[in-house]
């Protein structure tokens, strides 16, 4: 089997989850006696291709065109379809980034194929690859298989594989092959404009050693002071999962998760957070995770060191009191 890893860069900088996907590809290759190739797409990105070639792979495909300088879903789909048709990989792997979500399913569909996105792992069952992904907001896992002939498309979630396990090329460097693609400006229908960040947030949660985070379980904005009291007793910062910030109950800068901040504090206390994967990717690096949730099957308990299965409205005042007491003793 030929595996092709489509690495992601923006403005000449890697998206590091590309290397996690490369680690996945190398592992699948080992398991299935396959070869791995890499692909870099853009304009003026040959130095990135050279960098990728230092990893253990058969070759690096370099896809460059003036119209590929800035990412567009149309440009990427038109170009990559040609590459897939000429290079004929069996399995095409992507990091599951916002950019990949934006074009890869369409690329697969243009070839009449499906994509298994957002995988957290795989199994090789006597030659048949089974991809594992989450469903129901992380409450269940699912085994998913391809039903049609190759090429197959799949993406791996951030954190699913370890980028530090990527093997270097055994004899120095893999060859870099430029692949020419034809692309017409009329085929690119959307026009990317400025890239920007919103006004810098006042709180930097990434630097906070102790974080108390609330989720849907808080139910109403008037209940937030109870969680803030816990944070105050702990001497920590208050944070939240996305729905709380979507509702405007806490400012967006307090949001933890894939679209918010990624934190790795000493202590992360999750109150009424179910543990949807979009949240978990932003906090799973915490040293100690405590979860309080009335649903004992909440996925947050999968990653918690300590858990209390109870109503947060009963636990919050008790916890504030216990923390105050510990502080004064």
């Amino acid at each position, binding site marked *: 089997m030929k595996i092709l890893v489509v690495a992601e860069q923006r403005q000449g900088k890697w998206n590091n989850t590309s290397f996690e996907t490369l680690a996945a590809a190398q592992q699948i290759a080992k398991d299935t006696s396959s070869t791995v190739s890499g692909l870099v797409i853009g304009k003026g990105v040959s130095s990135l291709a050279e960098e990728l070639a230092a990893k253990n792979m058969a070759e690096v495909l370099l896809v460059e065109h003036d119209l590929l300088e800035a990412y567009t879903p149309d440009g990427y789909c038109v170009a990559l379809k040609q590459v897939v048709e000429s290079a004929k990989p069996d399995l095409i792997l992507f990091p599951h980034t916002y950019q990949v979500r934006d074009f890869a399913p369409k690329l697969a569909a243009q070839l009449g194929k*499906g994509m298994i996105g957002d995988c957290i792992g795989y199994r090789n069952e006597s030659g048949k690859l089974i991809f594992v992904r989450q469903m129901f907001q992380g409450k*269940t896992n699912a*085994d998913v298989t391809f039903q049609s002939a190759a090429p197959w498309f799949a993406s791996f979630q951030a954190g699913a594989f370890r980028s530090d396990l990527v093997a270097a090329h055994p004899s120095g460097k893999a060859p870099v092959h430029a692949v020419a693609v034809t692309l017409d400006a009329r085929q690119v229908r959307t026009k990317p404009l400025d890239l920007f*960040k919103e006004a810098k947030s006042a709180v930097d949660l990434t630097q906070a050693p102790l974080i108390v985070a609330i989720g849907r379980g808080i139910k109403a904005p008037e209940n937030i002071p109870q969680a803030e009291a816990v944070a105050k007793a702990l001497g920590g910062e208050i944070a939240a999962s996305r729905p709380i910030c979507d509702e405007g109950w806490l400012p967006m800068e307090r949001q933890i998760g894939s679209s918010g901040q990624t934190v790795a504090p000493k202590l992360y206390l999750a109150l009424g957070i179910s543990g949807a994967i979009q949240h978990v990717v932003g906090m799973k690096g915490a040293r100690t995770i405590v979860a309080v949730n009335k649903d004992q099957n909440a996925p947050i308990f999968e990653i918690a060191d300590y858990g209390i299965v109870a109503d947060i409205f009963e636990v919050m005042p008790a916890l504030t009191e*216990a923390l105050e007491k510990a502080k004064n003793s």
Partner: protein
Amino acid sequence: MNIIVCIKQVPAKDAPLTIAGNWIKESDIGFEMNEPDSYALEEALRLKEKHGGEVIALSLGPERVKQTIKEALAKGADRAIHIADDNFAQLDPLGAATYLSAAIKKEKFDLVLTGLQSDDHGFGQTGVLLAGLIDLPHATIIMAIEAQEGKLRLKRELEAGWFQHIECPLPAVLSIQSGINKVRYATLKGIIAAKKKEIATVTPESLGVSPQPTQRVEKIYIPTKTKKTEFLTGTPKEAATKLVEKLKFEARVI
């Protein structure tokens, strides 16, 4: 501006899930509008209020999805299309998008909106696949829409706090990021008005499409734990006291 909003009905957020093979037991649980789609519906209603036109709610699934369709009509959608399919839960993303695209192609529209992903399967592919199948420009994870002279100026969310403005011609398909707006509730007046609104029912057969599956969910299961959680029991007060002790003397984080 005529807008089609794709809305999925999913198991209610707090529904207890009983696994049955590659899906769940549907009896005894409640269903609701997929939350990300409610943001897409709200955005469609706001665009209509600003620019005129009509909002069409499009939903695929068994008879039960009519309840969610009625909710969309009560909130302000003008009419609805129900693609009736009892095998809905077994469709792969491309199959579902093939049905939806066949129904969309029969309508006159300027914009198709979807939510970011569904809270059940969570593939997050529908909008992008529709754009591919209908051959339209698209953009995903949209945080703001500004219509100007037959074009859209969009704010797209990227990772790690970055955003990008995008210009997109019409017609187009957009996947809306949750939190783009504040979703309205249906009013009593809206609920009464909805009773008179049209729900057209079509079937995969009448649409004339029969997509072949490209992938299959073999089974679903509760994941095995990778970390051992120590559960603290007792009254809330006892559990809280135990937790503070553990944090102080065992984890040593406070």
